[in-house]
């Protein structure tokens, strides 16, 4: 079980803030590929160059390995402060 979160513009574009992947093993990049295969209409947004990824609430690269129980997040560049 991997929890996948979406924030801000991406959350609104995908129409959901959270989904669960039941049976996954691989990298963060693999996880994104699987999401795009399962939801072809998400593909353009999820693969934008400026989308950031976090693994267990830390910014992470596509090579990072995802394990069961992890929390993954996708979001656009931050604009706080």
């Amino acid at each position, binding site marked *: 079980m991997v929890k996948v979160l979406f924030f801000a513009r991406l959350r609104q574009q995908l129409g959901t803030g959270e989904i669960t992947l039941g049976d996954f093993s691989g990298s963060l990049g693999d996880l994104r590929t699987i999401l795009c295969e399962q939801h072809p209409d998400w593909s353009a947004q999820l693969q934008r160059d400026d989308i950031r990824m*976090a693994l267990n609430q*830390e910014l992470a690269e596509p090579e990072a390995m995802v394990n069961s129980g992890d929390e993954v997040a996708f979001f*656009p560049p*931050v604009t706080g*402060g």
Partner: protein
Amino acid sequence: MKAVDRIEVRETPLDVAAEYSALQGNSGDGACALFVGTVRDFSAGSDVCGLALEHYPGMTEKSLQRIISDARSRWSLGRIAIVHRVGPMQINDEIVFVGVTSPHRQAAFAACQYLMDRLKTEVPFWKREAVSDPSGKSERWVEARESDAVEMEKWSAG
């Protein structure tokens, strides 16, 4: 004296006077640098009528703790406070307060600016504007600014 960090993400207005007072009392620190960011007036002729902030609970606090800990490894600092507001806001409302004390003013200034630069580029907050025009009300997400990423680069060059 033990270093004390204050990190808070809140939906209610910031109290700058109270935050400043809470930073005081470390009598070895003669310098205190503060930054306050407020909701700017929207550009003339704009149809923007409000602002709201979304964040990633959990990761936000973790990121703030990390940038504070990185600041402490670069400079000799006393107390540090970062308070950030989320939710709906009005013009002139305070969004963010960053305060740093130190025995040295250069360290206090540098750390305060460093914390703001990192907050702007990596802490998961997102602004969206409420727009009101003849066709009705809607929302739009604020775009990240290239200049914030450029500001951040100077800290790696050092």
